[in-house]
């Protein structure tokens, strides 16, 4: 990451490496609306994400949180307002969409690894075909990230032979191989057995510690407390509350937030 030291401030004193830029905007969403047919899923979304921010998006199911982050790499199309990612505004222009997608990694709830390719091929596919990196170099990078997510020995297996937690770590490594500037996580631990949640969260935490800009839809409130610098609460397609984790959990202001937190924090 390239930060000029003077633009960097430490919001959370406990985690010194997690620095947020004050001048560099990673994602800017202005007055964005989205409809599915007649159904108004996202209403007047305004959000500015600075480089290095770790944002957790929480909310009840159907509140539009997944749809929101899927709009950021244009897996969903918005109908009104602006979304600007890395300075590129998302329109129907396919070139811009590809430009944004190259720089934005995404991790899905159901991993979405390619089952007909080995782990290594999963990791090298996009670098080779999208970035034009030579195969040997791409494999080297892939092994580097596999070591980082602690499963280099699985490189030549197929996704179907791995556990859920391992598959999700491969999915994260696959995104990292593209060297993205922003990572989107869409409920990355929701489909995992309880025993496997931790290994995935650990990888995400280490990513955050390296200063990756992250937007993360999750129900892991422990993760939000430890890693996020902002929590966004959504309901019925709107951002209802937005705060630092401490304030969000200890002093929720909106009634809906209070109800939600009382439901999930036993």
């Amino acid at each position: 990451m390239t930060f000029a030291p003077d633009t960097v401030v430490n919001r959370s004193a406990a985690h010194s490496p997690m620095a947020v830029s004050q001048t560099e905007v990673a994602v800017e969403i202005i007055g964005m609306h989205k409809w599915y047919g007649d159904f108004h899923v996202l209403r007047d979304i305004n959000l500015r994400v600075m480089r290095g921010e770790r944002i957790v998006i929480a909310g009840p199911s159907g509140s539009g949180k997944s749809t929101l982050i899927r709009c950021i790499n244009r897996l969903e199309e918005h109908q009104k307002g602006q979304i600007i990612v890395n300075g590129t505004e998302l329109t129907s222009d396919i070139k811009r969409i590809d430009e944004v997608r190259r720089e934005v990694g995404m991790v899905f709830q159901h991993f979405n690894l390619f089952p007909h390719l080995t782990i290594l091929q999963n990791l090298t596919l996009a670098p080779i075909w999208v970035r034009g990196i030579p195969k040997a170099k791409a494999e080297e990078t892939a092994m580097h990230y596999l070591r980082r997510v602690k499963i280099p020995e699985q490189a030549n297996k197929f996704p179907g032979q791995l556990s859920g937690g391992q598959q999700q770590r491969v999915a994260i490594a696959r995104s990292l191989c593209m060297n993205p500037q922003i990572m989107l996580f869409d409920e990355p631990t929701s489909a995992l057995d309880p025993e496997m949640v931790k290994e995935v969260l650990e990888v995400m935490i280490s990513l955050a510690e390296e200063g990756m800009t992250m937007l993360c839809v999750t129900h892991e409130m422990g993760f939000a407390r430890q890693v996020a610098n902002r929590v966004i609460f959504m309901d019925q397609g709107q951002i209802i509350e937005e705060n630092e984790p401490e304030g969000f959990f200890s002093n929720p202001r909106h009634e809906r937030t209070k109800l939600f937190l009382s439901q999930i924090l036993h």
Partner: protein
Amino acid sequence: MSSSSFVRQEIAPAEAPPSSNAGAGAWVRKNLFATPQDTILTLLGIAFLLWAVPPVFNFVVGHAVGPGGTVDECRAQDAGACWAYISARISFFIYGFYPIDQFWRPNIVMLGGAALLIPLMAPKLPFKRLNALLFFIVFPVVSYILLAGGAFGLESVPTERWGGLLVTLIISLVGIICSIPLGILLALGRQSKLPIIKTFCVAFIELWRAVPLITVLFMASIMLPLFVPQGVTVDKLLRALVAVTLFEAAYLAEVVRGGLQALPRGQYEAGDSLGLKYWQRMGLIILPQALKHVIPGIVNSFIALFKDTTLVSIVGIFDLLNTIQAGTSDINWSAPNQAITGYVFAAAVYWVFCFSMSRYSIFMERRLNTGHKR
């Protein structure tokens, strides 16, 4: 006070299964005589085999006249199949009316095709790219020049004189190989977001699927010449080839579409989110999986196509079945079982090809299975 808590101290060892669960006796009991109904079905099955097998065996082998036999033996009272007739006319069944002194040309084509196709289908053999290039590009050109002649000092042999198994294989192979890319393109086009492409593909597929192959062949060979300007002639065999290919492509498109729809949306999204372009996503992620899912359906269509090539006889092309049909009027070999023998032979040849395709498809399915369905 008794406690309900329990902790296992040692692992229970694995034991051999009880004897009633293993061995031939257990197999017979389990598969043939498990219930009274099973017993009755087993006995009925045995009775049917006793009734059906001996006469069939006697016809095909027992009382049959072997390849070296004479026509008089075939005319005998209780003679079975007249294999002598088949062996006497075999060149007609393989080459049709192709000039006898030029048989080496189709021979080279058929042997060359087999020599290129077999290594192409065996996954372990190397040089796949070169092999594919030779088979899909060089082989068709060389074959056409060899078979049709009229160049390089080769005697010209018009396609009307091609026939028998040669023509059956040509129509099937060309139909199969050309319809795959066309069918895939149609299936992708049918999913396109562009209305023009989508409408064209839907219209094409629905039109061809709604018309019987016989009608298509009739149109191609009788109606089409009426529409083209005078003096322009398109070869009859070529017209049949085009008709069969387009017909098959429409069917394949629907099979492939089934595979495309069976893929979870996440596969498309994963490709998108990595920044892959449309053709990269399709070629690297979607189609390899979709086609693998529909191998049984694709091979099913190919088997149907192989047998449907017999319909070209209706427009006067002498394929294998048509030559055998024509052979029955050969009075030199007229015998009670002449026609039946011919048809049994035809059935056997079709069966060998179709069964091979079926086995190969099963082999490929197993080989391509990467165990992602757990």
